[in-house]
């Protein structure tokens, strides 16, 4: 992950942000999703390169997404900063979740 982040020439601060966000989301995948898959890809648009990371689990899903994205809200005894904090650290943040089916979170960080 760090290697890809360095490969697309993210700044040191942006590398730190994306790896930290990934750490938060990977923990969620494990703790709440019961484990899952993580996929790291280099991405390009017409102007910039970036890194995309997808976290997918077949866990219980998120019932109230707005609540889950609120700072300080947690059902797992943590600080409640994982989802909301990770969203602030990346450029694009997308959640696809369905109760009973699982959760897929996609994050992207672009080179500046």
């Amino acid at each position, binding site marked *: 992950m760090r290697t890809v982040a360095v490969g697309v020439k993210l700044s040191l*601060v942006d590398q*730190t942000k994306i790896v*930290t966000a990934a750490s938060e989301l990977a*923990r969620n995948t494990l703790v709440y999703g019961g484990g899952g898959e993580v996929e790291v890809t280099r991405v390009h648009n017409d102007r910039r390169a970036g890194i995309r990371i997808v976290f997918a689990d077949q866990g219980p899903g998120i019932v109230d997404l707005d609540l889950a994205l609120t700072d300080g809200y947690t059902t797992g005894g*943590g600080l409640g*900063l994982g989802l*909301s*904090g990770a969203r602030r*650290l990346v450029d694009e943040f997308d959640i696809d979740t369905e109760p009973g089916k699982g959760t897929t979170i996609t994050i992207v960080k672009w080179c500046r």
Partner: protein
Amino acid sequence: MERVPVLKIGDILLVSIQIDMEDQVALQLQEDLAERIVATGVHGVIIDISALDIVDSFVGRTLAAIASVSRVLDAETVVVGMRPAVAITLVELGLSLPGIRTALNVELGIAMLGSRETVDVLGDEGETDPAVLTRE
């Protein structure tokens, strides 16, 4: 599992985290430090995180817990050596580590713990003065 060594120097326990801070490592460190504080009776703990290239909310929370536990055991904790990118990321994550004292490096951390003791001594003297006045 790898373990973070805890070194005693005078009245301070020094911890320099040089390995990946996995969850279990962080929790073990918290336990080790609490035990060493009680066993040695030190009044200061310095945690050097200059080798950590990320601090996520779990590690941040563990550092805060270590500081709280230390305080209950009469030892002050100073976290030193945080990298600039880590500081920026922590704040954006929403974790400003309230209750944790920080210094730029180990040397300044030791100075900070030293000055705390001086202030305490002055504070004690400050409390004696009014008593003396009362007696007069």
